[in-house]
Structures are given as C-alpha cells and as structure tokens.
C-alpha cells in the first residue's frame, strides 16, 4: 500500500535535521555552559571587589590570589571542575568581610582580642554565605579553612596538616604572600624578596611543603 521513496528531498531533510540537532546540542552542552561560566566569574569577581572597597588596601587582592591559586592548583594536577571551584573559592574567600565593621577592618593600631575575634569570624561568615547558595555550597570548606596553617596555629578550627583541604592550603599561602607585598593600613608593603624569604622560612611549619615549593618555584620563574 505504501512505497518508501527515498528521494533527494528526503536526503536534504535528513541532512538539515542532523545539522540542526548537532548545532543545538553543541550550543546547549558546550557553548552555553562556557558562556555561563564566564558570567559567573565576572559577577563573582564584581561582588568580591565590592567587599574589597570596604577593606582599604585589599582592592584586587582576591583577583590576584585567584590567579596564583589557579596556577599552583594546575601544577598540582587539578583540572576542570576542581580548578573552577578553587577559582570561585579564591574570589569569595573574603566575602565574609561584608559583615565585619569597616572601622575594625581599617584600624591602624593593634586590634583588641575582641576585635581580632570579629575579624577572624570572616572565614566562618563567608563559609555560611556561600553554603546558602546551592551552586557554591561545595566550596564552603575551602573558605572556612583558608586561614588554617600546616602546624595547627591558624583559625578558626586549628586544623593540622592533611586535615586542611588542599585548596585551603593553596589559598593560605597565596593570600599571605599577596597581603605581605601590598600596602595595608597596619603595615607597609614588603619588598617581594623579603616576602619570599618569609614564606620560605615558614614552609614546613605554617605552609604545606609540597604547595610551598611549587609556589616558590612559580614566583622564581617570574609568573
């Protein structure tokens, strides 16, 4: 009753259908996620920068730390999704300072113990903020522990060694170095050579030896 005639027109439609399908899949699975990633990075950078305006002297801090952190993480063999997460963590690590009074952040004199407590609460506040957003919930640990030191002298939990997430260990060293070489209300900018020396001395006690050596190696290559 019915003849199947595969004419040139049928072939044409098959080719068109396949082209549209492949194009659309390409856009939705590759181009769109890439574009959205760009939007997230741009927006998160802007929000981090907004918090930085509060804390005079830290403008650009998060962005510089993010660059260094990503480079170190790459050297440590992180790829793709992990790398993306660590970049967000670096940008957002100080977002908790949004809820720390400006007067304390910019104080020139030494802080009182209560004030120190308030400043130190920024890692916890930041982790809480990030945990409230489903898209970023998995990086709250990195932010919570970005001021922990290898020997357990950091805050808020005083974690030691491998108990600190790797991402937080990278963040700690990158953030400390950038803080040393920039001008802050409570200290002048260090000479980069002195800062490197300081970091080198603390590898093994404050900083993870593996992360530290890669970090120093990168700095000596001038990147």
């Amino acid at each position, binding site marked *: 009753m019915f003849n199947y005639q*595969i004419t040139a027109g049928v072939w044409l439609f098959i080719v*068109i259908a396949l082209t549209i399908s492949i194009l*659309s899949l390409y856009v*939705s699975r590759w181009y769109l996620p890439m574009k959205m990633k760009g939007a997230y990075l741009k927006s998160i950078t802007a*929000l981090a920068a907004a*918090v930085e305006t509060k804390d005079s002297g830290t403008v650009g801090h998060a962005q510089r730390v993010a660059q260094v952190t990503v480079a170190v993480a790459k050297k440590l063999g992180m790829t793709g999704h992990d790398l993306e997460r660590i970049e967000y963590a670096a940008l957002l690590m100080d977002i908790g300072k949004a809820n720390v009074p400006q007067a304390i952040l910019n104080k020139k004199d030494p802080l009182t113990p209560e004030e120190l407590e308030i400043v130190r609460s920024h890692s916890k506040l930041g982790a809480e*903020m990030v945990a409230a957003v489903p898209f970023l919930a998995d990086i709250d640990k990195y932010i919570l522990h970005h001021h922990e030191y290898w020997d357990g002298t950091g805050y808020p939990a005083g974690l030691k060694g491998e108990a600190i997430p790797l991402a937080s260990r990278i963040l700690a060293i990158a953030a400390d170095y950038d803080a040393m070489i920039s001008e802050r209300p409570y200290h002048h900018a260090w000479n980069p050579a002195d800062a490197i020396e300081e970091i080198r001395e603390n590898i093994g006690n404050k900083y993870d030896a593996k992360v530290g050596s890669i970090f120093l190696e990168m700095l000596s290559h001038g990147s």
Partner: protein
Amino acid sequence: MNRLRLYAIFCAVVFMCAAVITLLVWAEVPIVGNPWPGVFWFALLACLGELLAVNLQEGAGVSVTPTSPILWSATCVLGPLPAILISAIVGVFSMLAKFICYKCTRVLDAHSSYFGVSVYKNGSHGLITELSSMIQGYGAQWQERPLGVTIQYIAAYVANMVVAVGPAGLVYHYLGGRFLIDPGPGFHVLTSFVLPFFGLVAASGIVDLGVWVLHALVVNPVPGAKGVYGLLLTMKLALIEVGLPIVRPQLFMLVVAIALSYLYIHIHVLGFIIAATPVLALRDFFNQWVAEREAYVNTITTLATYMQHYHPYTRGHLKRVADLAERLAREMQLPAESVRYISTAAFLHDIGKIGVSEEILDKTAKLTDEEWEKIKEHPVKGAEIISHLEFLDSIVDWIKYHHKWHNGGGYPATNGVDIEIPIEAAIIAAVDAFDAMTDDRELAIKWECDSCGYQPGDNSRPPMCPKCGAEKRRLYREPKTLDQAVDELRRGAGSQFHPKVIKAFLAMLDRDGVHFSV
C-alpha cells in the same frame, strides 16, 4: 456581569463555532483516498508532542507545543476533516494527561517519604527525576475547579483546537490546495501546495490570536479599566504579552510542518522520527537555557543579598520590599521582563551601602553633612556593582535612581539635567519608603542617646534627646501605623513619589492588604 457566567458564554460560543466549522468542512471538502491510517499516526505523534510543551513565560501559562505544525501538516496531507478529528483526539488526550499527572503529583506529594524525597524532589540527575519533574510540570497546568466549570473548560479547550484547524483547512482548500495522500492529476507543487499552505498558516495564526484576545477579555480584563477603553487596553495587552510570543515561533513551525508533510508522503512514519529529532534537540536547548539563566540569577542574587546582611533586620526588609515591588509591578501591568527582574532589583537596591561605614549607617544621632554625602553615594555605588552582573541592563538605572524624587529632588544629583526616572525605580522608592515607615525593626533597638548616653527609662522614642537636645534620625523614631504611612505616601505623591505608582500602590493595598508571601 458575573465572571463565571461570562466564561460559560465564552465556552459555549467557542463550542458552537467548532460545531459549525466542522459541519461546514464536512459539506465543503471531500475526503480523498484512505486517510484513516494517517489519522492514527498523526494523532499518535500529536499526543506525544503535546507532552513536550515548552513553557514560554513563567506563570503566564503560555506554552508552545509542536501540536500546531503537526495539525497543519495533517490538514494538507490528509484533509481538513481528518485533521479536525485528530485535533479533537489530541485535545481530549491533553486534558486527560493533565488530569492524570495532577492526580499523580498529589499522590507523590502525599507519599513523598515513601518514595524518598531526595529522589523525587531534590535530585538533579536520572530518568526518574526527569520523569517526575515532567509529571509535576504537566500536572501543574491542571486546576481544581468545580465539575461544571471543568466540563466547560474541557469542551472549550477541545473546541478551541478544532476552531484553530477547521478554518485554516477551508482556506487551504479554497486557495486550490490538494491533499497530498492523493493529489490527483494536474498537481503543481507551488500552486497546489506551497502557496495554499502559507494561507493555511496565516489563517491559523489569525484564529489563534482572535481566540486569545477573546479569552483575555473574558478571563483577565485589566483591573480598573472599564468601558471601551478597558476593552481596547485588554486587547492590546493580550496581543503584546501573549499573542506575539505565540506568533514568533510560527516561522519555525512552518518549516517543521513542511518537512513533516514531505517526509510522510515519501517515507511514511519514518519521516516523523527525522522531523522530531531537531525539535527535541531545540527543546532541550531551550530548557537548558532557561534553567541555567534561572540558576545564575538566583545564585548571584542570593550571594549579593547575604552581602548586605549587615543588620539582622535587613533581610526581612529586603524580602518584603521585593515581594511588594513585584506585586506592584504586576498591578501596574509592566512588561513581563520588568515584573521578572524587579524583585531581583529590590533585593539588591541597597547593595551600594556595602561601601558606607557601619558607623554612619547605625548612627542614631542626626547625620552631619559629610556623613550625608557618604550615604547619598550608595545608589550610584550600587549601580556600579550591578553593572558588572549579567542581569537585564536596565536594572542598573532602577537602582541608581531609587532615591531620586519625582520632582527632581533626592539623590544622586543630576546637575540640572532632566533625567527620566524609570518607573521601576519609582516603584522601589515607594515600596522601600513604605516598608521603612511601617517596619518595627527600630523598636528592637533600645533608644539611647549616643551623644550623652541618656535613656528615657520608658518606651518613649523622642525625636530629640530631652537631656542634651541632640536631634535623632527619622529612622530612630517610632514606626508609623498603616494609616499614617498611607497618608505619608499620599502626601508625597507628585513630589517625592510618582503619582501613578502611588495610585496603583494604594489601590493594591486597599484591595489586598499588606500580606507578604514570604
């Protein structure tokens, strides 16, 4: 006239139209060849297609289904009468499917602990989640109505589908179109198929729009607008808000319909698979796009909202402002984009305060000029921050001007240049002022003079310290009652506030009260 009765008349009119058109088609257009196997296949395809509806507008209930190209194609392949039969089958199937999905959702909701909430609601992968979200989405289109209204609704829905197909089929026939399963001698592709087919699509589009406008007139006329003006306004809004989004994808559907007809004639049902592939891929793309966009806006808005969380009371204030602003935007019939983004803007309107020191923000004494200058910077700073986010571009101005007065006062200063304050900024301004006036957050802060340390001892909140005479900020005074706040808004209409916004706001408060859906 009573809304329900009007709706019943609407249903009856559509149903009568459907019946007349069917009879007319029966009398006018002969059935050619043997269309019945085709009826089965096209109906099956259309029923599957109906399940793949794509929501065009959140909440507006406007969805695009691939049903119309299938019905157009059925008309020119099999003839108008078989197409009418298919449309009736699809209409009944669609109603039935919505009802069943609705019931399924209810059962799943009731037994969610049994099925495992994590699988059913929170999971983001897997076939089961996909399926259950489809069932939920489809079931959400069904509304619990009284039985009589439900029958009317179903009849009107089915009749509506028939009405969209019948006249289009007649147009195709009168323009000289032949039915492709048996085109007969003298068939010419251009004059016997392509040109009449464009006529068919145009007719179908016009009928669709007509029914939509009629539906809007009956079901949701513009509140407050009466008489001929109200009718025209409703028609205009129905055309712009709903009509155009429906018509726009029709060009794409036209291509799909031609492909379907051609492929069915040459390779029968196999052709459906070829035509369906790109449609499914595009649908996947569209869904992906909407979901990504939604996730992005939610993430950034939440994060930014938490950043302004410097005061335990701020979050509640922002939520209420966002909620009221969205309702007011709906009330004022602003474009869909504005309605969608105004709550985002309301959540972020004070984000510029992040750069203003807490000492100034929390100060209870009257501010010095210098401190005022600092506070006045916050809309511009906020606009700067927002400009880096990938939201709707115009949001930047909504935030920049939310402290600009209707008469040119307020801030930021525009140096004598006359700027047009976006209506959305005026909405945020009015709602923000209203919530600040009625909010009792100040009551939670103990009144204490920060110049001399005087405490009144009772619950009084004097605007000036009785001991040292230091003046206090307006915010630090007693909150106003609802009536006082409304009076204040009315007094400020035309000077501080946009008169149209205040008019709509007061009408809305009068009708709905100040409930919050938070």
